[in-house]
């Protein structure tokens, strides 16, 4: 379970105080186990800042974030151990093979020996990476890179799973594999937090949607509830309407 409570974060420009950016302004939400929670928001709404706070990379000015009840500021390593991350910007170690990279991240999560080997084999099989596994990742296509990054994030079977726009650049087949995978994780009772700009995908996949605008929670609920709240028939229209109003329809 991921809980974010009243997060505030400002980036202060020391030279010019007027340039201070208020990235998070009292954001609160909860992503429950056994659910896929979608996080929506226009560019610059504070999604990445929020997720980085969740990873323990940034320190909130006010409020707190917990992962399975562990505070990310107090015990960042323990909190991260419960987390699988697919970051916004990702790169690969181009001089390593796909297998070596997945192995690397599995080891960073403290896996070893036969357990690690089986976990790697499993994730390679699940994501259909067999052919790529023993090639160096230099020259991989965008979709292949994403799959490797996903495999890195999933190999230790994290209880909580945060994905920052995971489907960009994936072909239809890979997107389906990913969706099936997320559905399986959900069924097993994992907590999945998922950010995306593709409305159909969010509508199809997410149990609950959180809409973030100007560093605040603009609205939350099931896709259906959000549509009803905005009085629109599809999520895209509802989203535009919900972030467009200054005060937000509901919080």
């Amino acid at each position: 379970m991921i809980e974010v409570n009243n997060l505030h974060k400002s980036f202060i420009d020391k030279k010019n105080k007027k340039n201070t950016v208020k990235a998070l302004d009292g954001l609160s939400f909860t992503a429950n186990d056994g659910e896929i929670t979608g996080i929506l928001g226009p560019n610059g709404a504070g999604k990445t800042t929020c997720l980085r706070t969740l990873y323990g990379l940034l320190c909130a000015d006010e409020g707190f974030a917990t992962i399975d009840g562990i505070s990310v500021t107090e015990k960042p390593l323990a909190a991260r151990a419960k987390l699988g991350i697919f970051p916004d910007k990702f790169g690969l170690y181009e001089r390593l093979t796909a297998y070596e990279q997945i192995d690397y991240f599995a080891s960073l999560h403290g896996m070893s020996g036969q357990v690690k080997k089986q976990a790697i084999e499993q994730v390679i099989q699940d994501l259909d990476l067999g052919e790529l596994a023993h090639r160096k990742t230099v020259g991989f296509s965008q979709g292949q890179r994403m799959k490797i990054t996903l495999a890195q994030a999933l190999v230790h079977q994290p209880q909580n799973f945060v994905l920052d726009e995971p489907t960009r650049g994936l072909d239809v087949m890979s997107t389906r594999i990913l969706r099936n995978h997320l559905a399986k994780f959900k069924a097993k009772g994992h907590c999945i937090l998922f950010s995306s700009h593709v409305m159909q995908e969010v509508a199809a996949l997410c149990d609950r949607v959180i809409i973030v605008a100007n560093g605040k929670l603009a609205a939350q609920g099931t896709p259906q509830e959000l549509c009803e709240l905005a009085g629109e028939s599809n999520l895209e229209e509802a989203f535009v309407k919900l972030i467009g109003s200054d005060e937000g329809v509901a919080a």
Partner: protein
Amino acid sequence: MMSNLTRDLIQLKALVLKEYREAFRDKRALMVALMMAILAPIGIMMISKIMIEKLVDEPPVYVKFSGAEYAPQLIKHFADNNLLAFVDVPADEKSTWQQRSITLNIPANYAADMAAGKPIQLHLQADFTDKAVQPPVRRINNALRAFSLSIGYKRLLLRGVDIRLLNPLELVEQDTAKPDATFMLISMMLGLYLMLAAFMSGLSVAIDSSAGERERNVLEMLLCQPVSTLKIVLAKLISASTISVIGVLLILLLTSVSVGFVDLTKIGATFSLDLSTAAILLLLLLPICFFASACQLFVAFQTKSFKEAQSTVGMLIGIPAFIPFVISMMDDRPQWLNWLPIAGQSMIIEKIFKGVELDWLAVFTTSSVTIVITVALILALAKKLKSEKVVMALS
């Protein structure tokens, strides 16, 4: 639940293994490290050879004699001094001597004037501003003066004059330079080079694993993992300094092999890069390797791009070249210099090559100080990697 120590070890092993894989698969970085090592013995051999030639040999000089047939005694005296006739020049040197074109004209009345005791004018023609011509000209001059004097002395002797009257004053030169002073220079250069290699060899690995990773967007992913930044930094330090240790080892090995091919005994030097000297040098340079990598990582992690890292860290290279140089210029060396990293080691290396008894206390102090500074740098860097500033610079 697995114990914390096992977990730490698994993580550290994975981190180090990954750094090694990346470093040893980076052909360019390895090339830099190996280039330094291979160039060293070649350079030292070449310099030794040139110095030996300059110091020891009086290489043959080929002079265009005209009228050589009038003065056979003089020509013989020249030949004894390795000043030979141009006609005897070997084919491969012909063009150089043709170009230098040193000509000595001996007049036809040489024999007659000699017999009559009249002064004889010999004309030496050459481009006196040409640097390559100056030493041969000087030698011709000396040889001729000596020959002329010997004839003059004989004439005076025949007339019953004590030739010592001609030299009321005599300057006795006593050269206090040790026979191997030149060789000292070579070994000093080796010391400097070793220091430079310790700094240079791991350089590209250090930059690549810090600023390079940031630029390739893999650092953020790594910082989000449940690993302490200290382990991350340690792994990178181990990998970069391993490369520089390999570089230093190769230099020591190749140099000790290659000096066997140069006949240093000609300049009165016996190069003794034996096993124990090499081991002591390695012991001295090991902390330097770690210190250098720590400095480079510390600087490179704080730059914004790979390029910036390269130029900034490039400036660090100046330190190992500059400090020993300054120290060798100093007459009064303050005590604290002995303890500083680089300065301390370079003074000890200087002493090793001078053959002075090794001061183990100095070795211990300077090594400890170097290690303490390295540890401080690593801890500071691990702390810095946790700060928001570094994270903000990620994108």
